[in-house]
């Protein structure tokens, strides 16, 4: 059995597809591709797909990963090619390889974010963004399965490359990611909205998933 990890992007229209729907879409794509995928051997055989860190609904990503097993080896570039023939244009694989790291290795995620607000000058937005980065502790309300909880997010993120444009602000956000500690960029944006007392529109793209040593997850 050959384990395979593919990386794909989820951009444009596809960013509005929920994880559950991506799962079904990928199952069908793998099926159409005719790849010799391994099915579970239970009462109701189905293919077994694993996603390392599924992106939130509404965000784009150029670094989504999906693992599955093949019953016989296929050349990796063939896997990419065959899958892409069966995937819509906004969901396309760009690499396939044997998995190197376990998903527990995931520690950081990098996002490229663009903020806009109708009633707030870009300079002001940039200023409150910088201020948030320097505030410690930075207490925000986080919704969990058990209800709301106040947590300090200041050690969980950092910002860089803050650039002011005529109608918005762009910046790079690095947040803790993974199974143990995970900070969704929405909490940072929510905090900015609170400070600016304005609705902020954010376009978010995840650009990298990293280990603790800041190596690309692979």
């Amino acid at each position, binding site marked *: 059995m050959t384990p395979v990890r593919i990386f794909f992007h989820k951009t*444009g*229209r*596809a960013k*509005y*597809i*929920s994880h559950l*729907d*991506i799962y*079904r*879409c990928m*199952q*069908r*794509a*793998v*099926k*159409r591709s005719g790849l010799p995928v391994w*099915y579970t051997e239970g009462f109701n*055989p189905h293919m077994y797909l694993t996603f390392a860190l599924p992106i939130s*609904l*509404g965000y784009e990503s150029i670094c989504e990963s999906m693992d599955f097993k093949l019953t016989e080896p296929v050349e990796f570039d063939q896997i990419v090619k065959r899958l892409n023939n*069966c*995937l*819509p*244009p*906004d969901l396309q694989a760009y690499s396939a390889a044997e998995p190197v790291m376990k998903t527990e290795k995931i520690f950081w995620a990098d996002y490229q974010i663009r903020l806009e607000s109708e009633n707030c000058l870009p300079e002001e937005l940039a200023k409150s963004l910088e201020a948030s980065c320097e505030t410690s502790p930075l207490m925000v309300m986080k919704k969990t399965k058990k209800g709301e909880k106040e947590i300090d997010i200041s050690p969980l993120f950092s910002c860089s490359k803050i650039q002011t444009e005529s109608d918005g602000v762009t910046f790079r956000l690095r947040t803790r990611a993974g199974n143990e500690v995970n900070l969704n960029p929405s909490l940072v944006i929510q905090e900015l909205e609170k400070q600016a007392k304005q609705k902020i*529109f954010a*376009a978010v793209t995840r650009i990298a998933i990293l280990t603790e040593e800041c190596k690309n997850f692979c």
Partner: protein
Amino acid sequence: MMMDKLNRILPLVQKPARYTGGELNSIMKDKNKIEVRFAFCFPDLYEVGMSHLGMKILYSLLNEKENVWCERVFAPGADMEAQMRQNNIPLYGLESFDPLSEFDFIGFTLQYELCYTTVLNMLDLAGLPVRSKDREELTPLVVAGGPCTCNPEPIADFIDLFMLGEGEEQLPALVELYRKAKAEGRSKKAFLMQAAKEIPGIYVPMFYDVAYRSDGAIDSVKPNEDVPFPITKAIVKNLDQVYYPDQFVVPFIETVHDRAMVEVLRGCIRGCRFCQAGFIYRPFREKNFETLNKNGRNLCDSTGYEEISLSSLSTSDYSQLEPLLDKMLTWTDESKVNLSLPSLRIDNFSEELLDKIKKVRKSGLTFAPEAGTQRMRDVINKNISEEEVLNTCKTAFEGGYTSVKLYFMMGLPTETDDDIRGIIYLAQKIVDLFYSLPTKPKGKGVNVTVSVAGFVPKPHTPFEFEPQDTMDELKRKQAILLDTVRSRKISVKYHASDVTVLEGVLARGDRKLCDVLETAWKKGCKLDSWDEFFSLERWNEAYAECGIDPAFYSNRLRSYDEILPWDHLDYGVTKAFLIRENKKAHESNTTAHCRAICSGCGANCLLGGNCFDAR
């Protein structure tokens, strides 16, 4: 530009993937190379519309043409509509994101009467006047097809042109005629006239005047131009050679029917007297099993679906069902595809058939006896006996099934309270049968679900003359039904009767209802088939404001010689036949199915010969 606007609102709505297109097999084209743009509108939510086979066929068919681009449009949910209106985003095509007003055709499929208000709402969301007469230009042309066009009168003032019958040949002809008319700069009226004259099944309401008697019934329907009268529906004579898509758009989100489908046959040999589909889709035509096998295989390959259904009004009446199943099972098994047969009849449900379906997956079994007593079943010409129902259940129980769902109707013509109680007695007999079987599945109880819908008399059926039960009467009968249940193994489900009555009014309505429809829509009615949207109050206000008594349409017995609002629309089946069948119903006499003996309904004229001998 549109994507930019949508990015602002989509994060705020439920299931945003309903509104973004981009699915596998959705068709993108360069609009600069397109001569005719067609917006195929389904007046309900994405999940419902994307399950509809007719839309899939016509979408692929139109897009086969290089110079035509057909896109899909669905009704937005309430949250999305509010955001669209607030942010001035017009209704748009899911492929190009272009507003509907930029299309040449805005084509609605009318699958059920309760979608009419949604049609108006979608036109309004597109920024168009809802009334045909207020849209003076040729473009965009608002057209409609689907089963409800067999009586489109309640929506006649809003639609420029109706397409009666089957679209596979008619629609491309209409699009081509339009392309020429647009290139030649013809007026809307000139184009409509030419379409009505040259293309089979085209009904342009404004070319026909309706006069009423003082009692509200129709005095006459007369053409006011040189156009066909009556208007005869279009059919595809050779179903085996009809276009069938080898790709379906595969939705990202779950839809009502998210699976591959092949259409096994069209029409129905049975002639159940309540069933509109059983008459308006006549004559009966089948596809060859080799063709179907190929259709099905292509679709599964191109979509990756894990389920394929054999669709038709009555799949067990398909003469080549066994060879078809044998052929399909050779590949469905190994590619892990489930085969589903949604429409089986009780009387020809064999053990072998059960075995074949069981190979794939065991789900519940659903049958439709439709009525609880033999007398009632004879009246509606549902030619099955209690013995057959019990035998089928026995076969199913012995095959390991423990759950059976039965469909019934209440409010049928000549129905008595005993007929209502008979529904539960029949269910009880099935429960008793289960426990009497020595071979019953061990350690399991039985579950008989009785689902009861209110009967709605429909045009082009032998019951088109009949009064519908009032709401009070339906509620009274529901109480009797619940009261008769003595076993916890029987669960009863029934539909809300308020909606049933509205459906009845719209189904047999005339053009006077156009005002009611517009008034109700202006009061906020839309998506009436959804409980959370339906408001009886608003409809009642609309009736009152327009001086219309809904009982005139729903609860009135029509005489055989009354001119009915749809009498000028010829669906092949003659009124003389419907009257004959109606009389037989009142005598509790049945009519044999078409394969046994031709009962002379008239639909064979559409083929130009006999339905069965011709092949």
